[in-house]
């Protein structure tokens, strides 16, 4: 099976674009990724498009209607917050299978403001606030409190994660926000679901990101100077755990996908130079230090207290600003984090550059549950 390379990758600056359409926002990133690869839409053999909000509305084909209707096969995918990573992985798999040499993956989302989750079904009466809360800030607060129960993790430690990611985003011009948020500001922000304050919740924004994936043969033809090798593409769903059907388990499926990814790449967590992981809430990031093996179980609090996950630390996490400050356009997130890692591996990340980055990891979780992990490596 051929190795797979990212030849072009880019994202738009995340923001709010109520006057634009979903395909229009997606088309912009698609063109940027094509330009980055030095290729045109006519060179693409297939398109894998990730979008959640219009999952039944042929977003991929509508993107091609804006930038070039070549007749190529288009697959539209939806997989909650793992949607973008799933589109990328489907593209990766098509090259692995030997079907194609050059394919395009696009992730795009247009979001409303406000709470996600908790709407429930139309039967009977609304259950929100009656049988607990299904809102995302609450669901991830409950997951964080499970960690607090086990290891004594504090509100302040969770809050520090948000301080870190907001600080990182001041160096990322493509992030939604470039604003420092000191610890007292994070802790005193409006409480949404304890222990997640408003500044500890990801930002609902519009955005898109895209990548051109190629086979080894094609990569050599095009030149490897800025190519990034995909060392692993792993995906897992939630395995049975005792409480999973009541309290979605984001830990077990991340551990399953991480194990697979490390095995595919033939490396361990100690070889990873930077990580973009799914900080949909500050509480979630804490769990994934351990789930991804960046530290031992119970040591996540220390990772943030001792600065190991900051830019300049042992393994910088979410140097882009993460979902907390860069923003979280659901379907775009899984490709935007691949853009971030590739930018560091290419040495093009400017002020936030992780020095000497050779291998990076991306991670997303879609509740319900899907986990997607990619390991990427600098080629030259």
């Amino acid at each position, binding site marked *: 099976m051929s190795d797979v390379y990212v030849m072009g990758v880019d994202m738009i600056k995340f923001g709010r674009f109520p006057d634009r359409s979903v395909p229009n926002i997606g088309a912009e990133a698609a063109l940027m990724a094509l330009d980055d690869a030095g290729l045109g839409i006519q060179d693409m053999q297939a398109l894998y498009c990730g979008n959640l909000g219009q999952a039944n509305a042929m977003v991929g084909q509508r993107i091609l209607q804006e930038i070039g209707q070549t007749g190529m096969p288009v697959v539209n995918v939806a997989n909650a917050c793992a949607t973008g990573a799933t589109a990328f992985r489907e593209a990766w798999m098509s090259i692995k299978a030997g079907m194609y040499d050059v394919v395009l993956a696009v992730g795009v989302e247009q979001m409303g403001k406000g709470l996600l989750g908790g709407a429930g079904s139309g039967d009977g009466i609304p259950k929100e606030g009656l049988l*607990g809360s299904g809102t995302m*800030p609450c669901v991830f607060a409950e997951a964080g409190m499970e960690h607090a129960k086990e290891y004594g993790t504090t509100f302040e430690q969770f809050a520090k994660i948000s301080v870190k990611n907001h600080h990182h985003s001041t160096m990322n011009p493509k992030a939604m926000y470039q604003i420092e948020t000191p610890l007292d500001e994070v802790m005193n922000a409006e409480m949404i679901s304890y222990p997640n304050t408003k500044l500890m919740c990801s930002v609902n924004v519009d955005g898109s990101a895209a990548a051109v994936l190629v086979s080894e043969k094609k990569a050599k033809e095009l030149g490897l100077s800025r190519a990034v090798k995909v060392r692993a593409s792993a995906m897992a769903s939630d395995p049975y755990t005792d409480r999973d059907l009541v309290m979605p388990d984001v830990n077990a499926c991340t551990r399953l996908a991480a194990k697979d990814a490390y095995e595919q790449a033939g490396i361990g967590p100690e070889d990873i130079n930077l990580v973009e992981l799914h900080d949909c809430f500050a509480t979630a990031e804490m769990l994934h230090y351990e789930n991804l093996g960046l530290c031992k179980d119970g040591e996540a609090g220390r990772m943030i207290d001792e600065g190991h996950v900051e830019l300049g630390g042992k393994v910088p996490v979410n140097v882009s600003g993460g979902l907390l400050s860069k923003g979280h356009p659901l379907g775009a997130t899984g490709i935007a984090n691949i853009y971030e890692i590739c930018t560091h591996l290419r040495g093009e990340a400017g002020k936030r550059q992780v020095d000497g980055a050779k291998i990076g990891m991306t991670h997303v979780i879609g509740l319900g549950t899907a986990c997607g992990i990619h390991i990427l490596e600098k080629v030259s």
Partner: protein
Amino acid sequence: MSQSKPLPVVDYLKIPEDGDPYLEGYRCKKCGATFLGQRNVCSKCFARDEMEVIKLSDKGTLHSYAVVYRSFPGIDVPYVSAIVDLEGGGTIKGNLINIEPDPDKIEFNMPVKVIFDDALGRKDKDGNSYLSYFFEPI
């Protein structure tokens, strides 16, 4: 037409003609996994047609929780969204009531009781009232 008797808020809340309301579970006879709501196949051990209907305990312990301050319009906040492990198996989620919604007052693993009461006055479009379950500290 609205009914005089309240309806169950979820299908696993049972209201017998004579006797007290209770929560119903499905337990796999092969592996012991406990589920809420009817099912024929065990998602833990994959056994088919090995499910038995059981009455879930009305006692349990607090596994995890969050204090919800922001919810949808019209919903009273703050309240405690709680995950409770029931004695003898099964985990359920609901509101923990009759306790201050303050993390300093709430203890992990604290014993709680499942109680049944009107669903906070909520009615469906036909005017039916509902019986719900809640947790309270023992």
